[in-house]
């Protein structure tokens, strides 16, 4: 899909086709050459789970996986991520079944207002993929670039440790993906129909 260009009031940088694999789907959009990955993901690819917190690299709300590595999308030029495989928080769940890390955040109070949660989920998923037996210190180091104003971080560390136990096979997810838990969207989530930049 090639998006339409806006008629803007300020001088705009020349646009180019930008393509990448976003949550397993090929995305092809028209983006100006000065575009930041965060803006392309939110406004063009419809991934509104990528949050704009500070827009300056301090809060970690905009974290996405680029080729499996957690990166700040607000400080990444879209061009630098072209052709890569990008995972946003929307891509963590397996259909209607939450990933262990998501389920554990819900079960252990790792999320309160929820604004920081997408960033924390992505950063902790990256940690667990690499190391399913982290110490609390390693968890704290991994999430040092993510800020949370609500939880005080303790519940977040507990959620990550609980998910790590599931990854190690030591405990079971409260609702494992293989259970008969019915899928509320049997045909899969609908395509975004709202114009870019508007909440679904």
């Amino acid at each position, binding site marked *: 899909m090639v998006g339409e260009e806006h008629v803007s009031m*300020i*001088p*705009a*940088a*020349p646009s180019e086709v930008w393509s990448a694999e976003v949550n397993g789907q090929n995305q092809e959009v028209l983006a*100006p*050459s*000065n*575009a*930041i990955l965060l*803006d392309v993901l939110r406004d063009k690819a419809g991934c509104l789970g990528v949050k704009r917190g500070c*827009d*300056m*690299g*301090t809060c*970690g709300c905009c*974290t996405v996986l680029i080729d499996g*590595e*957690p*990166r*700040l999308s*607000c*400080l*990444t*030029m879209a*061009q*630098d991520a072209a052709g890569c495989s990008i995972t946003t928080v929307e891509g963590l769940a397996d259909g209607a079944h939450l990933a262990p890390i998501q389920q554990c955040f819900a079960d252990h109070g790792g999320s309160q207002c929820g604004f920081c949660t997408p960033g924390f989920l992505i*950063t902790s998923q990256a940690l667990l993929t690499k190391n399913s037996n982290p110490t609390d210190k390693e968890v704290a*180091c*991994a999430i*040092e*670039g*993510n800020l949370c104003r609500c939880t005080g971080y303790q519940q977040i560390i507990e959620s990550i440790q609980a998910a790590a136990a599931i990854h190690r096979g030591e405990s079971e997810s409260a609702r494992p993906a293989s259970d008969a838990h019915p899928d509320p969207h049997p045909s899969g989530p609908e395509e975004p129909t709202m114009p870019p930049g508007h909440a679904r």
Partner: protein
Amino acid sequence: MLMPPFELHRPSTVEEACSLAAKLIESGQDFDWIAGGTDLIPNYKWHINTKPHVISLAGIDGVSTISMNEIGCMARLHDIAEGGDAHPLVAEAASKVASSLIRRNATLGGNLCLDTRCFWYNQAEEWRSSIDWCHKCDCGTGSDCRVIPNQNELCVATYQGDVAPTLMVLDATVHLIGPNGARSVLLHDFYQLDGMTRNILQPGEFMLKITLPEDVEDWTGSYRKLRVRESWDFPEAGAAAAWKKGDRSTLRVATTALESIPRRHDEEVANSNGDVKAICDAIYKSTKPVNNTALPPRYRRNMIKVLVKRACEE
């Protein structure tokens, strides 16, 4: 925030980058280099000294090598800190930069060429307009400096990079390349004492790599940093020390985040006969931080004694 309307160029070889730079200079168009972007992008989002063109070094092959004696400009701080290939002191300094997420974008070249910082300057456009700008980004108004008032000749914005002092005490050489050819200088001659010029880079020139002396493996030491929070704050003061293992007479000390450039303190060390307390006092006397970062200059100046002492500990 709205990005300013610049055009991004992505050369894939060093030669292409140089000829692109030469072409832009010839046609009178201003441009900036971008590496990881963790310093340039926030500044651009705040519309600070933006240029109509930006040349990215990210697409160039072969400039991110990391070894004991050589590190390419595009080597990421994350890889330097955790890859196990760099000198342990360089890895230690890199691991103290910003947060683990930022280090995955941040590069060594960007860290060494970091723009100087000042709390009258690293602010949103509306904020800066409300104080009628300052000399470093005066938007054509000829504003004075807010830190040293009644003059608009000098900018004393602070260099707050973490890796430079460590590379200085290890005697690193920087290799620069541009449309007029390549040259190399010692890192401690690379910086220029002015918050706006910052370093000796000529228009169109960029940093290709740094190299370390053959015997660098025999050197040890440490880097100490004063910061507000452990997670990602810039250094408010920093000190690195290194000496050849088993030979304290080779001690070298360098500091950062105290003035517009990081500085190696050869004179202070030479005059102190290896007495660490005397070195601390001499460095305390010769550094004069100004009031333009988060912590008060008197505190930063006092802390430099503590940091140098701890960095020199065996």
